[in-house]
């Protein structure tokens, strides 16, 4: 817990924050507080067509008017996104949900709460990103596992050997050729498909 909060706070010192909010007293209050916290911060209004790519955190006013959805809606690999809301009607809540924001602050903007929202949003963003990459890895592993199983079955049929032996063959090929077992398995499956298409072996 302790190193965690220290790291989060230290990371704020280098944070590059963009505030998308009209340049008024509240916008200034937000910019000033972010500076006090130690962030590199700049403001922009109206919302830019595209987000500059040198920011890692965006505070963005959720507007109620007919403007298009914000540029900054949270995306994979995008910046941490904190929404600023001044209404809580279903229209604004809908926009808030659509934005996939990691955090939210309310108007009128006051200094208290900005640091908490910022730290929580950045932490949630990091957590989400770690979960996403974990899910991606698991999906790859699962697919690899299915391919290896399929390749084992092909070898068992073609070479009339046991499953354990087939598995060992795939592994030794992977080691020899410096490829992953999944790649060897995919090659076997592809080869089997082509050979069967040419009538050289039976369909399994």
């Amino acid at each position, binding site marked *: 817990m302790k190193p965690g909060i220290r790291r989060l706070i230290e990371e704020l*010192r280098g944070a590059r924050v963009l505030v998308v909010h009209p340049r008024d007293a509240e916008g200034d209050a937000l910019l000033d507080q972010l500076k006090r916290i130690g962030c590199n911060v700049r403001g922009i209004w109206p919302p830019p067509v595209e987000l500059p790519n040198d920011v890692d955190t965006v505070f963005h006013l959720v507007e109620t008017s007919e403007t298009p959805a914000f540029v900054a809606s949270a995306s994979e690999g995008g910046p941490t996104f904190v929404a600023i809301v001044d209404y809580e009607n279903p229209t604004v809540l809908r926009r808030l949900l659509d934005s996939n924001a990691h955090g939210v602050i309310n108007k009128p903007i006051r*200094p208290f709460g900005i640091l908490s929202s910022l730290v929580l949003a950045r932490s949630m963003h990091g957590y989400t990103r770690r979960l996403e990459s974990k899910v991606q890895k698991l999906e790859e592993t699962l697919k690899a596992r299915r391919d290896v199983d399929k390749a084992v079955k092909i070898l068992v049929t073609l070479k009339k050997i046991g499953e354990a032996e087939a598995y060992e063959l795939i592994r030794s090929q992977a080691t020899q050729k410096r490829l992953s077992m999944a790649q060897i398995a995919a090659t076997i499956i592809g080869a089997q498909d082509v050979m069967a298409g040419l009538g050289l072996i039976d369909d399994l």
Partner: protein
Amino acid sequence: MVSGTASSSDTWRVGVLFSRTGLTAVTETEHFLGTALAIQEINQAGGILGREIEVVAYDPESDPAIYRRLADRLLTDDGISVIFGGSSSAQRKAVLPAIERRNGLLWYPSLYEGFEYSPNVIYTGASPNQTSFPLAEYLVRNHGRRVFLVGSDYIYPRESNRIMRDLVESYGGKIVDEVYVPMAAPESRLREIVARVKDLAPDVVFSTVVGRSAQAFYRLYREAGLDPASMPIASLTMAEGEVREIGAALCEGHITAATYFGSLQGPSNRRFAENFHRAFGPDTPISMWSAGAYAQVHLFALALERAGTLDTQRLVEAALGLSFEAPEGAIQIDPDNNHTWLTPRIGRVRRDGSFDVVWEAKAAVKPDPYLAVSPLGARWIGEEVSVA
């Protein structure tokens, strides 16, 4: 409890909330006296823009809930917007919602753990970068790497100890234990802590125990035979008044990091000490509490003179950037964060209960409440200090 007789139309009415009773009565009484002295000086000199300051003072009994209630009373029933008060974060946090909702202005004179900014508060006490930062380096370099943390169980000790842990580790030191006691700690619990210190034999104890519990802790520490000369307690709050309560002989050798000590030799402090002793008797100790509370009333007077109104917005605008020749030396309200430029110092208790200043910064240091520009492990103490 209302003092002063002039009608409110020809005076500047301000509120004062410092406890005269309860757990932190000793320090808060010093706050009160410093505040009273400054107001007396200003009124005797003809007031501000020809109008005297009129005080409405209540005793919050060291209790955050009572602080909150009395702040509400000042802001509503008494129609007062400017309040001088508070000696702990728990008290300040209790008062803040009332202050912000009624758009009042709190002048908070005590050191605290940072990580706060309100447009309705002027913070004239020290931030951690003005106390803990140099203290950590001083302790590790002069007393050793093994540090024991003990605190009262509320936000100031928890956060101060978190900061101290990071600092000590950044200087290559090690925290041997971190323990907490209730605000009104029973003596048996304090005895356990003292025994634990004796067992672990650290090089130094950093204590954020406050109020009467702190006084008892220092007493029991000495009674248990622990020697401040070889294993001092370091603190950010132990000042002359409490040292006297405990008994100066029992405190000799302990260390406090603060921006003011009564023993400072500057002309502004001599003037303050003379006036203070004339007003409250030669035996009443002066400390960071009275000096800080005194300085902020003078800053307020300068701001009011500029603004000409008690309107919060205009008073704050006038206050930002103001400087004053305080008892500790030149101080200034930082225009970016409402905190105050102060001069960090480290003092060691003498046998007579005053402090030897063993280190001081060359000039006032910018307050950095969010520790945004204060790197861990930075150099504060000059090369001339020998490494223990």
